[in-house]
């Protein structure tokens, strides 16, 4: 079955003339926590729905644990625990009744002790479990959604905006849960989120999708290395811009007599060498922020 928990190859989905995703290829290793990022309408949910065989691809394929999500749909879905972006509920059911119903559909046995552990971790009390879902807050419904995705101990978790509507304490509890799963090493997490601090804190790797295409993928460290950094150089006296040699990966974005602002991709060494002999007063490098990095992609949408 290989080392990939999820593998997409040339995955393409058109809705008439509209591109859902196009030639999307990526891999998620077993045990990895993968952050899937993109602006609204970029294709995140389409990708997830293709993975779950809720949508049928125009071309290409996607596998989960080596199982083709379309041809071996049932077996593939048996590997997945899923939390949709907007967790739907039956308003007339209690939370306990809903969990029981979903466990019956699961086809996997749900350990009572593990379920109790999850309920305790997400602060779902016995009273909450007895209340009808129509009377529950959005946050409580989201917690039930997270619990139902985790309760079957599926080897692959697909979580669409898991912390939307959770208070900071519960969002923290969720991150701790992901940490536990990550350290246990037997669960792959495919996480779509807009909360970048969460992605930065929990994900081993991220993929950025824009206009249905994967535009960047790698570890946060990879992204840091490859991302353009903003380097501001202040001089003690005006310096002629012509003295800056042409350097690969370096672009001048703004300059005045006493200040240059550069966009630098790759190592800083050549820039520092080029500045030797210049009356540099100060040099500052803006620290890498995933937020800024993504904004450059989001802005183009």
């Amino acid at each position: 079955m290989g080392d990939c928990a999820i593998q997409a190859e040339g995955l393409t989905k058109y809705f008439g003339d509209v591109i859902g995703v196009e030639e999307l290829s990526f891999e998620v290793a077993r045990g990895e926590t993968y952050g899937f990022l993109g602006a609204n309408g970029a294709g995140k949910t389409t990708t997830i729905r293709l993975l779950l065989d809720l949508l049928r691809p125009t071309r290409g394929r996607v596998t989960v644990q080596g199982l083709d999500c379309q041809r071996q749909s049932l077996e593939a879905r048996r590997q997945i625990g899923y939390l949709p972006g907007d967790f739907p509920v039956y308003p007339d059911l209690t939370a306990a009744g809903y969990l029981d119903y979903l466990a019956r559909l699961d086809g996997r046995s749900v350990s009572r002790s593990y379920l109790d552990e999850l309920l305790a971790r997400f602060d779902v009390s016995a009273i909450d479990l007895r209340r009808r879902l129509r009377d529950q807050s959005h946050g409580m419904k989201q917690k039930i959604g997270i619990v139902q995705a985790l309760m079957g101990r599926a080897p692959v978790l697909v979580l669409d905006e898991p912390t939307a509507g959770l208070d900071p304490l519960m969002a923290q509890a969720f991150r701790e849960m992901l940490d536990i799963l990550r350290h246990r090493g037997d669960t792959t997490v495919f996480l779509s989120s807009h909360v970048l601090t969460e992605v930065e804190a929990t994900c081993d790797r991220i993929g950025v999708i824009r206009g249905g295409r994967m535009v960047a993928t790698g570890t946060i460290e990879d992204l840091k290395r490859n991302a353009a950094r903003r380097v501001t150089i202040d001089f003690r006296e005006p310096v002629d811009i012509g003295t800056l040699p042409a350097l690969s990966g370096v672009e001048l974005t703004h300059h005045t007599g006493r200040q240059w602002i550069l966009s630098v991709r790759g190592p800083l060494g050549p820039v520092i060498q080029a500045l030797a002999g210049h009356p540099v007063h100060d040099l500052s490098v803006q620290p890498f922020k995933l937020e800024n990095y993504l904004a450059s992609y989001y802005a183009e949408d």
Partner: protein
Amino acid sequence: MTLLPALMQRSATQARFVLLGSLGLLAGLQVVIVGQASALEETHGFSRMTELVPAFLQRGLGNKSLLLVTFKGTVAFGYFHPVVATLVAVLAIYFVTEIAHEVESGLVDVMLARSVPRRVVVTRSVLLATGAVAAAMLLMAAGTRLGLRLFGSPEFDAPSAGVTARLLLHLAGVALCFAGFGLAVAAGARRWSTAFTTAALTAVLMYLVDFLAIGWPLLRPIAWLSPFHYYPALSILAGDAPEWRNLIVLLSAAAGFGALGYWRFSRRDL
């Protein structure tokens, strides 16, 4: 195999008020109709009602139209009254269009993200619709029996058990035909209201086509399209309707539409 019972239990629980309300109404209506027929029979009212049968019905249906102004015909009318016929059809449509509601609400995502085959979701709806129609038929027959016990007399010429069974079988056939049509529509719909309204209005329209064709020759060439055309209640009552032909047409159409529903739902994007 716990999937199908779990799905059926959930849907039935959710629809319990609609189901029980409709079944109660259908059964209650039979009791009331028998009560009305008994009152007319006791006062010899039917003999005075012959001239009340509309002329177009007499022209279109011939002598059979006069069966409507007999005790037997009025009791049997409870099985082909427009409200009854369309209500049974709409009840079946309600259950089969649940899949469109599940798509609209996103519940289908949570169900089908698990190892639940799409066909099981459709089968659940088909079984519930069939069960609801069967329950309606049984309770309507029970309503008639109860009405006869409460208001009838052994001297009254009530429809025989065989005629009642044939009328109910044909009514069930019509309802299942619309259930199949509703399923075919719902299997491709994104909104429950679209699927339900389309199928329910089609049922009403088809009733009108069949009924109006009796007196309006212009509609007769297309009357065969209406499932109600294959439910010749007065002929069944008169004992001159074909034994099985109409029922076979209705059930074949139901099966055809149903198969189309399965096929559409298995291929569609959710």
